[in-house]
């Protein structure tokens, strides 16, 4: 213990021993340290006062009697053993609970995945413009924007129009034209963000309801 604090030396009459008084009171100093502290205390009123204060504090702390546990020790132990013997929840229950807690993360990963697909596909299509001969093939299908992102948008809007036409919603399909080419992507992004926001708010609401139910149970 004497190696712990090097700033002061209890053997030096000019230095106080206050950092060691707690350990001295607890009986945690070596025999040599104890002799030095006691020799110092004989002549130092400051340290005597400190020691007295610590002793009073210890008396105060111990004046508070220990808590008497309710019920017998045997009944308490039986309760513990019953809980130990209770079978663990099935794996699927624990998996569901974990999945519910991780829901915001999954939503974020889904959004990030969609964004990544959009960006990567746009880059790939821009890159394809530089492949010799590919332009002629694409031009045969449709006018080719130079921007890969716009091309991707155009392909999506064509797909959407074809789907709506096949569902006999021709008027809606034709009105898609005014959304081309950038509008379709913006619409899809907006739709995705809306869905994610609704899911996240639903998750927050279920979390709030769960905590309310737990609080009510506790109060009961």
């Amino acid at each position, binding site marked *: 213990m004497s190696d712990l604090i090097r700033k002061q030396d209890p053997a030096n009459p000019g230095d106080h021993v206050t950092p060691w008084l*707690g350990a001295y009171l607890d009986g945690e100093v070596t025999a040599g340290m104890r002799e030095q502290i006691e020799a110092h205390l004989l002549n130092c009123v400051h340290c005597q006062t400190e020691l007295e204060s610590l002793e009073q504090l210890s008396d105060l702390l111990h*004046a*508070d009697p220990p808590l008497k546990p309710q019920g017998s020790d045997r009944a308490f132990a039986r309760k*513990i*053993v019953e809980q130990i013997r209770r079978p663990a929840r099935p794996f699927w229950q624990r998996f569901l609970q974990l999945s519910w807690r991780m829901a915001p993360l999954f939503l974020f990963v889904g959004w990030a995945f969609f964004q990544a697909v959009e960006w990567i596909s746009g880059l790939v299509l821009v890159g394809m413009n530089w492949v010799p001969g590919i332009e002629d093939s694409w031009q045969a299908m449709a006018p080719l924007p130079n921007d890969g992102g716009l091309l991707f948008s155009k392909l999506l809007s064509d797909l959407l129009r074809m789907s709506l036409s096949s569902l006999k919603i021709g008027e809606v399909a034709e009105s898609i034209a005014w959304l081309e080419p950038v509008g379709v992507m913006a619409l899809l992004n907006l739709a995705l963000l809306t869905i994610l926001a609704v899911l996240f708010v639903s998750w927050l609401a279920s979390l709030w309801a769960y905590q309310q139910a737990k*609080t009510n149970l506790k109060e009961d």
Partner: protein
Amino acid sequence: MTIPVSLLTDQELINAAVGGETHAYNELVVRYRDGVVNVVYRMCGDPALAEEAAQEAFIRAWQHLSGYHPEHPFRTWLYRIAVNAALDALRRDRRLTGLNELDEEKLVEDTDDPEGSLEARERRQRVRKAVMTLSPASRAVLVMREYGGLSYAEISTSLNIPLGTVMSRLNSARSQLRQALVGILEVI
């Protein structure tokens, strides 16, 4: 002839409990219940929470019993689990009830000496409140020392902190308590 579990040593009970014998663990719980309940009570300041945290501590101890090393006393290992269970119970309780500060109503409850003098009861309440204002790290060291009766070396092992840290946290805790209890202590 079967030896009654009450005559077995702690290590024998632990060995049996690790082997799955719950009646051996039952005996361990009986032996250490008072100590654990008092440690968790001093850590979280609420008798009801203390009961809950003590149960949680013993359940966790059962689940991790195979991780106990016999070269250290069982109570040092158990008290660490108890301290963590108390802190977890306190965090859960504050999160559920929206408490960011100490719940004074719980702290003033004096179940031990309802007929004691008013002054003595108020003094005890102030002491409990002062202990609860310590940081969890300082409170754990103080509680283990003053109420758990652990030595500095045992506290160091239990909380996995250096001996010097035990001493400095104790000094800091006692200094804070003396400041908080300035009206009660005759000497500061």
